[in-house]
């Protein structure tokens, strides 16, 4: 009945959400009008009644009866029509608002994971619905969950998985997830069965199969939301992170497979009919389902990668292709009773590499965000529904069952962690320490997965379903709240080994070298192993796969791409802060220059080093942004920035043409190092780079920090050569007057280049000659960071640097 819902206007009004209020208020006049119209025939004399209807609507509603409408209703309302989408949307919005509030209050995210919040919100909503006797929308039933809610979550997990660490640790991960799930499931199931045998608890009607099923359900771990956020924040080492992540990813699949197999067993009606052959068939099926799912996923991944090769003209459908194919892989696998979850995961992993190269930047961003959005929505709905169903009459509390479940969950997880890792440590180069294992044990949070599986138990086969649901809910609440909240402090307390990943060129180079070295040594030894496999795969990949799947295939080198990425980042930072900083590249100096240079005093060196450290490659700590809750925003502005940079560049180019800086730079200077952009044309050959001077130990402080700036007004030929369209000169950052070493300027190796850039973004090419004034004498600094707007306030000795500071001042 449409009016049924108007019963608790007060209830809705409690919620301090404007949205709901607005919505609610909107509804009432409609209802009142309707009522009025319907009683039109009887009393025309009460036109005012309905305008004051808000408060009285409740009463009106209950007393109203649906009379025939003779007239055309001016305002009418049909809530039933929109009920389901309306309420679903409302829930999602509610959760989003709660999340906003959650993050606004700074202390809270550190205190509890987001899933706690969602559950609380869900419980609130559930309380309201329960209190108002409202019938909640049927969000959760088997097909909806498995077909619509689950795939986005899994897809997101698979897509954002870091492939290299995953495959490096894949043996351990598979061993741990697979065996762990099995061990947990059977362990818990059997132990509970034993408990059920005890007559005193009143559980004797729960047979072995049901217990096993319950065990398989409850062993599905879902640590993603809570734990990974904590891990990221604490920068734990990669292996640990990968273990948890991998477990979360594969665990779902395995539990569902197990669940389905056991349900099939249960449906075989009589327990006694199950023969060993069935059990064997069960195992075989387990393997087939798993491997088949992965296989499907890979095929679909390749197909979609192939298709994206041709979509350059209609890039709007690229996200569509990605999502549809992933979803298709899921559905196709499910058709054949293979594991859809593993299929979609494999599809995402396969697809990602190639798709990322094929699609346009905007599509890439779209895919990323849309995926996160979808999975957020799904997860939110599930958690809220969980909260909703907590508050209700559908529970059966059995002390023994619940308590023992809790105990056994912990015990068996501990057993499986320590036993399995003991075994896998024998085979690993980096064994997991006991600390790591404790963390892994403690991060066994249950989540939406278990709840869904519990909720979807067919009542016919499980007369005591309510008890299962209750127990599952208790476990989830316990683990999410208690373990979720305390795992952060625990990680910090245990002082787990931190990751030492920092993006740097050196590391990338060294890692590459090591890989090749190890592969080479393995070749020499004649042994096949880890690196060989990866090497071979890479070769195969390059030779065949990439040619087929990627358009405009250019062999990529991770070193070069990292380098370009870093430069890009720096350029963006530069643009962002409006300050140009030098790239710290060597000034190519002629040999004789080196001799002619002055020695730098230690404090110069110190200051230079400081400056370098702060300006060079200020790459952010590479955090693993796999968590949907912390979306890194770095790459999203890339494109705009890039356009900006390019525009500046062309602008600068045009300025430069008319330049004739009278700075008499000695012609020997060649100090150009420009940023290169990924789309640069390969004209970089014009540069000359000299030899770095790291090898003089007599002048150990003679490090020349090349300040790159365009050599204006120099010999024409030099100038031409230097003008490379794709480069942006990086200029020395002046920080409060520190002396900068320009290397090779004039005669001395020191000099300064002051470049003031007005904070607004177009960094002007200030190319001044060396100013000897800025000696190290002026170290008045306290600030050690890039100073942006500050500069505008500092007139320094009236040097002419500032000439070209107003952004649009045409130079000369």
């Amino acid at each position, binding site marked *: 009945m449409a009016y049924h819902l108007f019963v608790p206007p007060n209830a809705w009004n409690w919620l301090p959400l404007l949205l709901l209020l607005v919505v609610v208020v909107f509804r009432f006049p409609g209802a009142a009008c309707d009522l009025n119209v319907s009683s039109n025939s009887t009393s025309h004399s009460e036109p005012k009644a309905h305008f004051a209807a808000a408060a009285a609507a409740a009463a009106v509603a209950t007393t109203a009866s649906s009379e025939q409408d003779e007239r055309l209703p001016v305002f009418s309302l049909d809530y039933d029509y929109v009920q389901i989408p309306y309420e679903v949307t409302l829930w999602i919005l509610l959760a989003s608002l709660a999340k906003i509030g959650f993050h606004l209050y700074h202390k809270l995210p550190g205190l509890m994971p987001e899933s706690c919040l969602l559950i609380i919100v869900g419980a609130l909503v559930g309380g309201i619905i329960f209190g108002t006797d409202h019938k909640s929308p049927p969000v959760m039933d088997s097909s909806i969950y498995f077909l619509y809610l689950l795939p986005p979550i899994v897809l997101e997990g698979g897509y954002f998985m870091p492939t290299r660490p995953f495959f490096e640790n894949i043996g351990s991960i598979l061993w741990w997830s697979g065996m762990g799930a099995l061990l947990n499931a059977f362990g818990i199931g059997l132990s509970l069965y034993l408990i059920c045998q005890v007559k005193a608890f009143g559980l004797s009607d729960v047979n072995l199969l049901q217990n096993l099923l319950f065990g398989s359900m409850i062993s599905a771990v879902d640590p993603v939301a809570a734990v990974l956020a904590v891990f990221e924040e604490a920068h734990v080492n990669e292996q640990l992170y990968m273990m948890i992540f991998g477990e979360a990813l594969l665990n779902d699949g395995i539990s569902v497979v197990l669940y389905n197999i056991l349900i099939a067993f249960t449906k075989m009606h009589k327990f006694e009919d199950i023969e060993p052959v069935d059990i064997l068939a069960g195992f075989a099926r387990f393997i087939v389902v798993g491997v088949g799912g992965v296989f499907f996923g890979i095929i679909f991944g390749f197909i979609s990668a192939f298709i994206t090769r041709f979509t350059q003209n209609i890039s709007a459908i690229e996200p569509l292709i990605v999502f549809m194919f992933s979803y298709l892989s899921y559905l196709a696998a499910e058709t054949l009773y293979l594991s859809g979850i593993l299929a979609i995961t494999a599809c995402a992993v396969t697809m990602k590499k190639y798709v990322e190269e094929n699609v346009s930047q905007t599509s890439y961003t779209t895919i990323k965000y849309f995926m996160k959005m979808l999975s957020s929505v799904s997860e939110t709905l599930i958690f809220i529904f969980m909260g909703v169903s907590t508050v209700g009459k559908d529970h059966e509390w059995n002390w023994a069952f619940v308590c023992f479940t809790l105990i056994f969950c912990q015990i068996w997880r501990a057993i499986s962690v320590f036993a399995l890792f003991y075994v896998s440590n024998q085979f690993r180069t*980096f*064994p997991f320490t006991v600390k790591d294992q404790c963390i892994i044990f403690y991060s066994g949070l249950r989540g939406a997965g278990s709840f869904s599986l519990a909720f979807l138990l067919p009542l016919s086969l499980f007369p005591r379903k309510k008890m299962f649901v209750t127990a599952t809910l208790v476990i989830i609440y316990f683990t999410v709240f208690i373990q979720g909240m305390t795992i952060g402090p625990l990680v910090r307390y245990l002082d787990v080994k931190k990751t*030492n990943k*920092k993006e*740097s*060129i*050196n*590391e990338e*180079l*060294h*890692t*590459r*070298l*090591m890989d*090749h*070295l*190890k*592969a*080479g*040594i393995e*070749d*020499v*030894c*004649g042994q096949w192993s880890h690196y*060989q496999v990866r*090497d071979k795969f890479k070769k195969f990949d390059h030779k065949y796969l990439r040619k087929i799947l990627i358009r405009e295939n250019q*062999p*990529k*080198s991770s*070193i*070069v791409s990292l*380098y370009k990425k*870093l430069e890009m980042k720096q350029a963006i930072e530069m643009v962002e802060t409006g300050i140009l900083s030098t*790239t*710290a*590249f*060597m000034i190519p100096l002629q040999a004789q220059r080196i001799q002619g240079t002055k020695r730098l005093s230690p404090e110069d*060196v110190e200051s230079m*080093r400081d400056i*370098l*450290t702060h300006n*060079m*490659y200020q790459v952010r700590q590479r955090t693993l942004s796999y968590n949907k809750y912390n979306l890194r925003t770095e790459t999203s502005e890339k494109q705009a920035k890039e356009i900006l940079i390019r525009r500046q560049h062309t602008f600068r180019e045009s300025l430069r043409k008319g330049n004739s800086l009278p700075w008499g730079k000695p012609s020997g200077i060649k100090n150009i*190092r420009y940023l*290169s952009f990924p789309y640069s044309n*390969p004209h*970089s*050959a014009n*540069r000359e*780079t000299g*030899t*770095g001077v*790291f*090898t*003089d*130990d007599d002048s*150990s*402080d003679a*490090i020349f*920090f090349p300040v790159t700036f365009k050599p204006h007004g120099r010999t024409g030929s030099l100038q031409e050569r230097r003008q490379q369209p794709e480069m942006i000169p990086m200029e020395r950052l002046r920080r409060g007057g520190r002396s900068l070493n320009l290397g090779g300027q004039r005669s001395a190796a020191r000099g300064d280049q002051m470049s003031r850039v007005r904070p607004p973004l177009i960094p002007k090419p200030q190319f001044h000659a060396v100013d000897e004034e800025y000696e190290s004498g002026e170290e008045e600094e306290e600030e050690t960071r890039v100073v942006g707007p500050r500069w505008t306030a500092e007139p320094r000795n009236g040097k002419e640097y500032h000439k070209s500071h107003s952004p649009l001042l045409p130079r000369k």
Partner: protein
Amino acid sequence: MGSSQSTSEEVRELVGKTGFSSDQIEQLHRRFKQLSGNQLTIRKENFNNIPDLELNPIRSKIIRAFFDNRNLRKAPTGLADEINFEDFLTIMSYFRPIETNMDEEQLEHCRKEKLRFLFHMYDSDSDGRITLEEYRNVVEELLSGNPHIEKESARSIADGAMMEAASVCVGQMHPEWSGEVFQLRKAYVCVF
């Protein structure tokens, strides 16, 4: 020491010297014989028999490392012409995993040895220092498999890396220097 006289006495001696187990020594010995064509020594040309190695971009450096006198602990510079089995094992021993039962000092020593090996790979002229040229050389080799990268890019990458290292430690990259070791350590030691 020769392939024809692997008595248990010598095996034990090798076990002591290089730290490999006798099984591993047997296995490596078989491989050595295979590579050398049943001779007592291996020369550079023998490495051409390894087909997969051809595709390795730093192939020349790897092969060179086998003959590098510094790695063989024979002389501070220069290359040997041929190596025998013991030398082969010596080089291989750089790649043994670190054992957990070593004490701090041994661990430190092991790590240093490994780092030194790597350092020697970079430092081709054996002057104890890695110059920018040498570094560039390495980068070029690493990128050599990729026809689309010009030399200039490789150079600029090397330059960038060098400057990055400079930010960590002023001065040259001397193996004893904590700076370089620090730099290398981050990347290497955990992988080793």
